C-alpha cells in the first residue's frame, strides 16, 4: 500500500515539472495562437545555459536562475521580434514549419557545441535530502521544491494575466488583435513579451529538469510532447488546468513504470489519447479552438 502511495506521490511531484513545460506552451498559444514546436528544445537550451552559468561562476543551479531566467527571457523577446512575428497570420503553416526548422537548428547547434554526451547539473547535498511524510512514505526535498515552484509559477501567471496591465494587454490581444491594435497596443511588442515570459518559465523548467536527471541535445521533442499532453488533458486556455494535466500525466507515467518499466511513457500517452477520445475539450477547458 505504502509502495503505491509513494509511486503516486512521485508522479504528482514530477507532474509539477510537466506543468511548467505546459504553462509556457499554453501561454503563447493563448495570446497569439502559436504552437511552438521548438518549445522542448528551448527547455534543453535553458539547461545548457544553466550549465554554462554554473560552471563559469561556480554557483548553485538554483541560484543560477537569477541569470538564466533573464537570459532566456531576452532570447524569447528577440526570437519573437526577429523571427516569429513575421510568421503570424491566417495561415498556420508558416509558424509551424518555422518553429520546426528552429527545433532542428537548436538540436544540431547544441550537438555541435556540447557533443552528444549526457550532462547534469550538480545541486549538492539537497539532491539526496529526504524526509518522512508518513510511515514508509519518503519525500525528496528537491522534488518538493520543484513542485512548490511549479505551483508558484502557475499562480504567478494567473495573477499576471488577470491583475496587471501586461496581462490585460495579453487578454485583449488574444480576444481581438485588430481592435487591440486600434486601442493603441503594439501587438508586436505584446507578442514578444508573451514569448519572453514563456521562455522565462522554460528557464525555470529547464534548470529543474537538468538537476533532476541527465540531459543531452536530443531530449527536447519528448519534453514538448509532455507539455502538449498536459495542456490538452487540462483543457486549452486554463492555467490551473495545465497543473492538473501535468499531475495526471506524471501519475500515469509513474503507475505505468511501476507495473512495467517499459510502459512508463506508453501509459502517459494512452491516458492522453483516452482523454482525447472521451473528453476532447480537456478536463478544465476555458477557450475553444
Amino acid at each position, binding site marked *: 500500500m505504502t509502495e503505491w502511495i509513494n509511486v503516486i506521490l512521485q508522479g504528482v511531484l514530477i507532474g509539477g515539472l510537466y506543468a511548467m513545460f505546459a504553462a509556457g506552451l499554453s501561454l503563447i498559444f493563448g495570446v497569439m*495562437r*502559436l*504552437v511552438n*514546436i521548438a518549445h522542448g528544445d528551448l527547455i534543453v537550451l535553458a539547461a545548457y545555459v544553466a550549465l554554462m552559468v554554473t560552471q563559469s561562476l561556480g554557483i548553485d543551479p538554483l541560484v543560477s536562475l537569477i541569470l538564466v531566467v533573464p537570459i532566456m527571457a531576452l532570447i524569447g523577446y528577440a526570437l519573437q521580434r526577429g*523571427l516569429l512575428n*513575421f*510568421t503570424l497570420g491566417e495561415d*498556420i*503553416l*508558416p*509558424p*509551424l*514549419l*518555422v518553429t*520546426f*526548422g*528552429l*527545433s*532542428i*537548428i537548436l*538540436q*544540431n*547547434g547544441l*550537438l*555541435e557545441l556540447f557533443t552528444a554526451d549526457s550532462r547534469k547539473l550538480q545541486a549538492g547535498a539537497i539532491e539526496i535530502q529526504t524526509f518522512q511524510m508518513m510511515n514508509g512514505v519518503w519525500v525528496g526535498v528537491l522534488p518538493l521544491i520543484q513542485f512548490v515552484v511549479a505551483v508558484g509559477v502557475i499562480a504567478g501567471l494567473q495573477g499576471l494575466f488577470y491583475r496587471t496591465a501586461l496581462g490585460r494587454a495579453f487578454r485583449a490581444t488574444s480576444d481581438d488583435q485588430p481592435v487591440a491594435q486600434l486601442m493603441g497596443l503594439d501587438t508586436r511588442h505584446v507578442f514578444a513579451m508573451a514569448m519572453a515570459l514563456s521562455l522565462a518559465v522554460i528557464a525555470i523548467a529547464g534548470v529543474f529538469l537538468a538537476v533532476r536527471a541527465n540531459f543531452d541535445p536530443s531530449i527536447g*521533442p519528448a519534453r*514538448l*510532447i509532455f507539455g*502538449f*499532453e498536459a495542456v*490538452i488533458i487540462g483543457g486549452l486556455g486554463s492555467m490551473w488546468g495545465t497543473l492538473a494535466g501535468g499531475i495526471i500525466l506524471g501519475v500515469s507515467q509513474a503507475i505505468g513504470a511501476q507495473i512495467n518499466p*517499459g510502459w512508463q*511513457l*506508453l501509459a502517459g*500517452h*494512452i491516458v*492522453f*489519447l483516452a482523454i*482525447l*477520445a472521451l473528453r*476532447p475539450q480537456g478536463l478544465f477547458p476555458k477557450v475553444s*479552438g
Partner: protein
Amino acid sequence: MMRVEHATTSSRIGVALIAVALVVLALAPFWGARETLRLLAEIFTYIALASLWNLLAGYAGLVSVGQQAFVGFGGYLLFALAMLAGVHPILAILLAGPAAALVAVPVAMLIFRLRGAYFAIGTWVVAEVFRLIASQISVLGGGSGISLPAAIVIAMAPSRQLREFETYWLALALTVLILGVIVALLRSRHGLALTAIRDNELAAQSNGIDVTRLKFIVYVLTAFGTGMMGGLIFLMKLRISPDTAFSVNDWTAFVIFITVIGGIGRIEGPIIGTVIFFVMRQTLSDLGSLYLLMMGAVAIIIMLWAPKGLWGLIAELLGWQVLPLQRRLLISGAAEKPGKKS
C-alpha cells in the same frame, strides 16, 4: 458549348518529358551501376513520401509531423508478415498499404479532434505510441531491432543482381503508382474541392464542400501510400529497429524540408525538392550536424521569403505547369479564355 481543358503547352511538353524519363528510368538496371540503382530507389521513396505529405499538408491543410507512424508501421508489418507468416516480401509490401489505411481510420477519428498546430503534435504522439509498442514486441527484436533473415531475402530471386533489379523496379512502380493516384485525385472533382480547401478553407466549406469528410479520406489515403513505402524502405534496408522505423528526422523533417523547398501545395514541388535535397546531401553530408542545421535554416528562409518554394517561383514567373492539372474553361466559338489557375 463549354468544356474544361487541363493541358497547356508547357504541360504537354512536361508530360512528354516525363514519359521519356520514365522509359530511361525503367531501363536503369541496364545502364546504371549498383550504387546508382540504390541511390535512385532511395530518391523515388523520398519523392513518394514527400508527394504524399504534400497532398496531406499542402492541399488538405493537415500538417502532420507524425507520418513516421505509417512508415514504421509498414516496415514492421513487412517484417512480421515475412518472418512470422511466411508471406512473400513483395506481397507483404502491397498488404502494408490497406493495413496502414485500416489503422489510420481510428487514428484519424481521435486526432481530428485537434485543430491546426495541435493536430500536428497529436500525430507525433501517435507515432511515439507506435514506436513504444514496436519496442515491446520481442519476436521482432524489441527495442534493439532485428534483421530480415537471409533465407527470406535469398528466396526473393534466383540471384543477388535479380533481387536488386526487382527492388528497384518495385520502388519505381510504387512511386509512379502513388504519383499517378495523386494526379488522378487532383484532376477529379475531389481535386477541385481540395484545391479550393488549399486556397481558402472557409470559402470551400461555404460552397458546399464537406471539408471534414474530404480531409478524412485524404488522411487515410496518405496512410495507405506511406505504409506501402515504409514496407519498401525497410525491404531495401533489410534491418529494422523502433528508432529507425519511427524516426522523426528521416521520415518527417527531411520530407517537410523537401516539400517546403520545392514548393508546397504544388504537385511538382516535392519532385524538385527531392532532387535539391539529394544534391545537398551528396555534397554536404560530411558536415554532419552542421548540415542538418543549415537545412533547418534554409527551410526557415524559404518559408519566410518564398513560401511557395522554388517551383512556386518558377510557375509564377513563367506560368509553367509540368502536369496537366489546371482547369481552363473553353467556350467554343469565342476566343480562348484562360480561367482561374488552379
